């Protein structure tokens, strides 16, 4: 059977899309609803994944405790980044967030004693020993898989189980974020996006709300980082390079800014292009080997984005009217 028709293949694409849904949802809160240009989003994903792995391997924490701590640490990093920078104008904020993300990544590369260095988390326990942080996760996943088997039989593989778990969490988070932005709290975020001077003239503490948006986005990125770590059992600093942040932006723009339900749509489309094209075994993709396809997909993503901005700047689910309001 060809790859393209197999359930396993689509399950893998779906897992990637699910992880990116959670990641991009954080950006939607920051950029789509609050107007913050955070170009360092991948760093929070990295902080989440690394904190969890380090606590499990080096401090012997149980996985769940380490995961909660990882989210808390990512929020802490969000506050740390926000306190000195959120008073900056949008473009300056963007520059400092890029710098922040690169600092995080370079620390991950160079602080080998803490992070395992450039080879990744496999070196967390020191040389000569292959470290693993997700024994507890695999056990949990196995038990979920056993439960799934009762329902869908032998289709319940590891990837399908992961697919169910990631999307269950992603949907819960989507519902929660959607509910939150419809409240008076969300109204304040949107007012800051539209005009922060007007918001502060009307008695809103703009700085405090930007900080909250940054913290919420950081927490969501950390959760995405955790799932990323669980899925791949091993990761390295290169997994969180700036490209990841731009993928998240691609998803938000692809789906439509300030539309939560556009995030999974954008993420699935992105997942198909990104993870999918590698395994597309029909022309024109079959003319290229899989290594070449790995690069072609970046070109495809770029072209899709350009085409979208040209022909549908509001994204797939966005409202065109909103784009022309001045």
């Amino acid at each position, binding site marked *: 059977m060809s790859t393209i028709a197999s359930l396993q293949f689509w399950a893998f694409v779906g897992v990637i899309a699910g992880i990116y849904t959670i990641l991009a949802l954080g950006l939607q809160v920051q950029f789509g609803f609050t107007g913050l240009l955070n170009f360092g989003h991948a760093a929070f994903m990295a902080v989440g994944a690394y904190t969890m792995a380090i606590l499990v391997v080096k401090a012997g924490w149980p996985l769940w405790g380490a995961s909660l701590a990882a989210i808390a640490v990512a929020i802490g990093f969000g506050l740390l980044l926000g306190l000195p920078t959120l008073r900056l104008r949008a473009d300056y904020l963007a520059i400092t967030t890029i710098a922040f993300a690169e600092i995080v990544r370079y620390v991950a590369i160079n602080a080998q004693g803490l992070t395992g260095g450039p080879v990744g988390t496999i070196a967390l326990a020191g040389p000569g020993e292959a470290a693993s942080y997700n024994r507890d996760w695999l056990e949990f996943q196995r038990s979920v898989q056993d439960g799934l088997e009762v329902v869908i039989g032998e289709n319940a593989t590891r990837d399908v189980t992961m697919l169910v778990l990631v999307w269950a969490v992603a949907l819960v988070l989507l519902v929660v974020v959607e509910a*939150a932005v419809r*409240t*008076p*709290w969300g*109204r*304040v975020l*949107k*007012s800051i*996006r*539209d*005009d922060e*001077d*007007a*918001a*502060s*003239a*009307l*008695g*809103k*503490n*703009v700085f405090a709300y930007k900080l*909250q948006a940054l913290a919420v986005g950081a927490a969501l990125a950390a959760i995405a980082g955790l799932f990323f770590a669980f899925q791949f059992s091993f990761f390295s600093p290169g997994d969180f390079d700036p490209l990841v942040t731009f993928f998240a932006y691609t998803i938000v723009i692809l789906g439509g800014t*300030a539309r939560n339900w556009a995030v999974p749509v954008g993420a699935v489309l992105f997942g198909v292009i990104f993870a999918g094209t590698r395994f597309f075994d029909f022309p024109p993709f079959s003319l290229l080997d899989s290594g070449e396809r790995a690069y072609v997909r970046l070109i495809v993503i770029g072209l899709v984005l350009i085409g979208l901005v040209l022909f549908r700047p509001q994204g797939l689910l966005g409202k065109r*009217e*909103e784009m022309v*309001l*001045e």
Partner: protein
Amino acid sequence: MSLLQADDVAKRFGGLAAVDGASLTVQERSITALIGPNGAGKTTLFNIFSGFIRPERGSVLLNEVRIDGRPPHAVNRRGLVRTFQTPRALRRMSVLENVLLAAPHQPGERLWRLVATPGSVRRREREIEEQARELLRLVRLDGLAQEYAGTLSGGQRKLLEFARALMTGPRIVLLDEPMAGVSPPLAIQLLDHMRTLREERGLTFFLVDHDLEMVMSVSDHVIVMNEGRVIAAGTPDEVRADPLVVDAYLGTHGRAVG
């Protein structure tokens, strides 16, 4: 009683002294106008009063509490609200949402209260919505409540800002050219509303406008600025008769207005 009081306030931008030791008083329940030629420092002074600019010197008292150097949102919570010369509509929010946003004391603006006390959030939201719709009726925007604020005309945005400002429950409203772009019949109605709000709710209005005829007819107190300083203050008649004012401001036309 003086509600807003500025003493020797100064602010420079580079070599330009935008406000250069201005002192003034706005009486409670008055409609006070601030006039002066372009570049006299009126808008800078409004920015200082509303917390957007920190003065280099001097003090600003609101109801006998110092507010200079406090951030805009803190000044607003003490009862001072301002509008902008170029209206700041929240474009991608509905007209109604623009006004809802301005309401004070909505516990639902805090995440933990949304979870802890959803009932009080909903109750307050109902109150706010009723109040907001009433204010929109006042400025004749009730028919556009669900439209994006970004679709409004310049004059309609002025009106929206007026409604939004009142929604914050202020004691004093600073209006920066409130009537610019508003059709004359509606402008007259708004002036009537200002008088009514002053009588019924004890509100104070402090406005900058270039329409001298309107300013002189509506205000019970006029403050004249020139080159960063207050050069005259008094009733419209007193100010009209002041030779300094005629010279600095009205004198460019070679005659007094009236």
